[in-house]
């Protein structure tokens, strides 16, 4: 099981802020995760439509899309940041 958290319009489109889901063994990287989630329903497909703009953090650290997710306690998906 992986703990996923979502923020901003990713959260709004998916319709929840966090969830625990079982991932198939074929999901190895952040990019794999996004591709897999998009198969789970329209809300995921809409939220992750432009997958390459989505930012990924593993255990609260930014990572690239090709980073392996094995061992992650928490994986976050969110849009580009607009604080400050």
């Amino acid at each position: 099981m992986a703990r996923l958290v979502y923020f901003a319009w990713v959260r709004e489109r998916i319709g929840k802020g966090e969830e625990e889901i079982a991932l198939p063994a074929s999901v190895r990287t952040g990019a794999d995760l996004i591709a897999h989630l998009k198969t789970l329903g329209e809300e995921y497909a809409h939220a992750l439509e432009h997958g390459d703009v989505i930012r990924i953090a593993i255990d609260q650290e930014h990572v690239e899309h090709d980073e392996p997710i094995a061992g992650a306690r928490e994986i976050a998906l969110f849009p580009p940041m607009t604080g400050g």
Partner: protein
Amino acid sequence: MITVRVGPEDFDVAAETARLTAGRADIGAVVAFTGLCRNEDGRLSGLELEHYPGMAEAEIYRICGEAVARFSLTAVTAIHRVGRIAPGENIVLVLAAAPHRHAAFDGASFVMDYLKTSAPFWKKEHFTDGSAGGWVEAKDSDDRARDKWS
């Protein structure tokens, strides 16, 4: 000395400056950046600031640490508000203290440029005409401002 705070409370720049400089006389320059909510010609009724609790603080702390090392700062304070913010209200405060002024200016500017592009905060706009508003889009100019430092 690095101080980071994320929360709904407002801040007082004089109190934060006093805290930064208290009891020391080796600081010659303090630069304070305050970011405020604009009303966008009256169209905006307010902003909603969302953040990733834990990571937001950690990321700002990391950025401040880089600034301290790079510009030999004496101290840095960064405070970011979250929740609903009305036009004219404060959003963010960055204070950089150093022996000399250019380090303090560069330090505060560096922290702001990185904070904008890598600290996990998101702004949603609410409009005075009651329309839903939307999430603020990230700006290329912010990425370019950050890339200037590398």
